């Protein structure tokens, strides 16, 4: 692609950051008033964002393997000095994922949760801006700034709805993240001290020239930076904040937070693959073993947590930890096939976790309703799935159950059918069973583990790590299946005599949308996997990314017009 079309793509790169910033600023002007108008603006902004991100993804995909990265210079300064926005396959994937999860969470929030606080819509857009910015930025310090934007908005969203539990979880969450941000700054400062630049591509280019006396400092800086990232990716042992925070957050916020753990993983993957590529001498894959074994420990921790959790929201939160562990361990091997499978797994598992967080609220509501109908505060009007289960008068020879009610011809309420089917799809994706994307991703990863290029016959520790990963991957699927079947029986099968759940279409739509995307990921598995493995190839061969960034030239100023005589 070249000419005006490529130019349009280049300029669109800034849109996922500018659009949420603009709409958030507009919403803030309204103060506490004009909630309906803010909601409309928010939906429009989310829809436009989803459209823009999808068109970016399509543009990146159609450009073919020839081009690794698109670079936009926001202030038109020459490259190592000005800030850059870089779009490559990985960031395009993350942008689309964020946009659609954001859209679903917003639609879900519209029916109830938006009314629980004043600045919900502004915070929501700022959160999207931080996420998109973190995926697009090409230098360390802007990564920090966008991390902070994202985190500050997430502090607000976590407290949305208030209540002691949220404030309590929020306090711990903020404290942990502030410390992680301090570590981030220390790491960034050390990198600057060693490399003399903050642009990721420029640092990566200069790493080869760093004298061996400074290597220790460089490694220490990157390690400190890595600790800040893996604390945000909810990696063991830095993930104890996740469970209280994510289970206390309101469901739309929790659904959006599911992407936030992936930002930490994204940052690790981006910086690690750029700085320590497989080909470079001296710093070959610094910290690979640490990534693999920390990832495996996280996977084990999450598996045990999933296995033992007795509440659905806790199972979902632990499944996020499992997903983080799987991703980190898979990335640590630095095999393109494995990383490609992991990226496919990332998309599917994040979509499923978000849908699950939304679904938990609907399931819990039907439980609460059943346990104590007097306490139900769900308005009955506007609940189209509320149908009566009492059918017409029974014929005398009807087949009756224990309570002498008809067994045949009893209508299953549509709401219950929706909940059960959604639960089943989420559970199958999370546990990695066929026919959904979790299964395909695990097959790809296990195949790559069993046929690794250069991993077999390598060191004993690599082989041990590969076998442990293989075992843990399968066991984690089993644990998720056991836990989810148990909870499915408790939530959906065992309850008797409860009134059918009162659901609104506006609440079912976003869940349905996320699940449709999960199904779409299976139907389009061929192109999707091709795209993610191409993304992994680009990541593990960063020369083209570095070249693309370093060869970007500022747009020359327009020729000065001669003054009219």
């Amino acid at each position, binding site marked *: 692609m070249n000419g005006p079309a490529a130019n349009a793509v280049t300029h669109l790169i800034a849109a996922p950051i500018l659009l949420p910033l603009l709409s958030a600023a507009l919403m803030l002007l309204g103060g506490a008033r004009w909630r309906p108008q803010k909601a409309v603006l928010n939906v429009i902004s989310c829809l436009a964002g989803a459209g823009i991100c999808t068109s970016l993804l399509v543009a990146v995909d159609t450009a073919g393997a020839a081009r690794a990265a698109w670079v936009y210079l926001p202030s038109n300064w020459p490259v190592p000095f000005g800030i850059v926005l870089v779009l490559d396959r990985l960031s395009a994937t993350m942008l689309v994922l964020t946009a659609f999860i954001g859209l679903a969470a917003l639609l879900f929030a519209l029916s109830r949760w938006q009314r629980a606080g004043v600045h919900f819509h502004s915070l929501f857009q700022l959160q999207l801006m931080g996420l998109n910015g973190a995926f697009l930025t090409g230098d360390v310090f802007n990564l920090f700034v966008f991390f902070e934007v994202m985190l*500050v908005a997430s502090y607000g969203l976590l407290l949305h709805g208030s209540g002691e539990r949220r*404030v309590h979880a929020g*306090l711990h969450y903020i404290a942990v993240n*502030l410390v992680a941000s301090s570590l981030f700054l220390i790491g960034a400062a050390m990198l600057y001290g060693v490399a003399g630049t903050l642009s990721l591509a420029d640092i990566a280019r200069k790493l080869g020239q760093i004298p061996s006396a400074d290597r220790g400092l460089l490694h220490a800086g990157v390690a400190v930076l890595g600790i800040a990232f893996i604390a945000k990716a909810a990696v063991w042992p830095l993930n104890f904040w996740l469970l209280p925070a994510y289970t206390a957050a309101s469901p739309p916020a929790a659904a959006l937070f599911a992407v936030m753990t992936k930002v930490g993983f994204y940052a690790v993957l981006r910086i690690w693959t750029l700085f320590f590529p497989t080909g470079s001498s001296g710093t070959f894959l610094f910290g690979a073993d640490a990534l693999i074994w920390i990832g495996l420990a996280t996977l084990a921790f999450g598996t045990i947590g999933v296995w033992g959790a007795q509440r659905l929201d806790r199972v979902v939160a632990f499944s996020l930890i499992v997903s983080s562990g799987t991703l980190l361990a898979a990335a640590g091997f630095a095999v393109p096939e494995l990383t490609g499978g992991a990226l496919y797994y990332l998309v599917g598992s994040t979509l499923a976790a978000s849908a699950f967080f939304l679904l938990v609220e609907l399931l819990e509501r039907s439980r609460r309703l059943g346990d104590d109908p007097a306490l139900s505060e769900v308005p009955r009007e506007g609940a189209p799935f509320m149908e009566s289960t009492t059918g017409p008068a029974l014929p005398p020879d009807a087949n009756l159950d224990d309570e002498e009610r008809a067994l045949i011809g009893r209508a299953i309420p549509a709401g219950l059918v929706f909940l059960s089917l959604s639960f089943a799809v989420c559970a199958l994706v999370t546990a990695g069973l066929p026919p959904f994307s979790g299964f395909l991703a695990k097959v790809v990863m296990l195949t790559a583990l069993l046929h690794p290029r250069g991993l077999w016959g390598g060191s004993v520790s690599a082989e041990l790590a590969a076998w442990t990963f293989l075992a843990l991957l399968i066991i984690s699927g089993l644990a998720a299946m056991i836990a989810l079947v148990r909870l499915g029986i408790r939530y959906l099968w065992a309850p008797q005599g409860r009134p059918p759940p009162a659901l609104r279409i506006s609440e079912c739509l976003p869940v349905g949308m996320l699940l449709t995307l999960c199904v779409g990921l299976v139907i389009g598995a061929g192109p999707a996997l091709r795209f993610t493995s191409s993304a992994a190839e680009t990541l593990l061969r960063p020369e083209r990314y570095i070249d693309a960034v370093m060869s970007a030239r500022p747009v020359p100023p327009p020729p000065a017009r001669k003054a009219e005589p």
Partner: protein
Amino acid sequence: MEVVISIAIGVLAGSGVWLLLRPRTFQVLLGLALLSYAVNLFIFATGSLSIRAEPIIVPGQPADLLHYTDPMPQALVLTAIVIGFATTALFLVVLLALRGLSGTDHVDGREEAR
């Protein structure tokens, strides 16, 4: 000068971490503040410490770090101070909210059982 700065950073960071691990929310807040001071000083120090050097390249002098001081860490530390200040203020608000809701200033929202 390097030694003095290093010791200052070390003391600030050490006290910050110690306060961070204390059970009272206000101590945690002060710990976070001290830690961010330490980090800000650290960033500032990465731009080579020099006395009477401006972050400007003066015409006629060679453009190396002996003759001017690196403006980049100063710009970074400015951003870091602003962000750190805002997030610490936010933490203070949440701290007060928790104090109001739970009636105690323990970080867990309840006193430890004795």
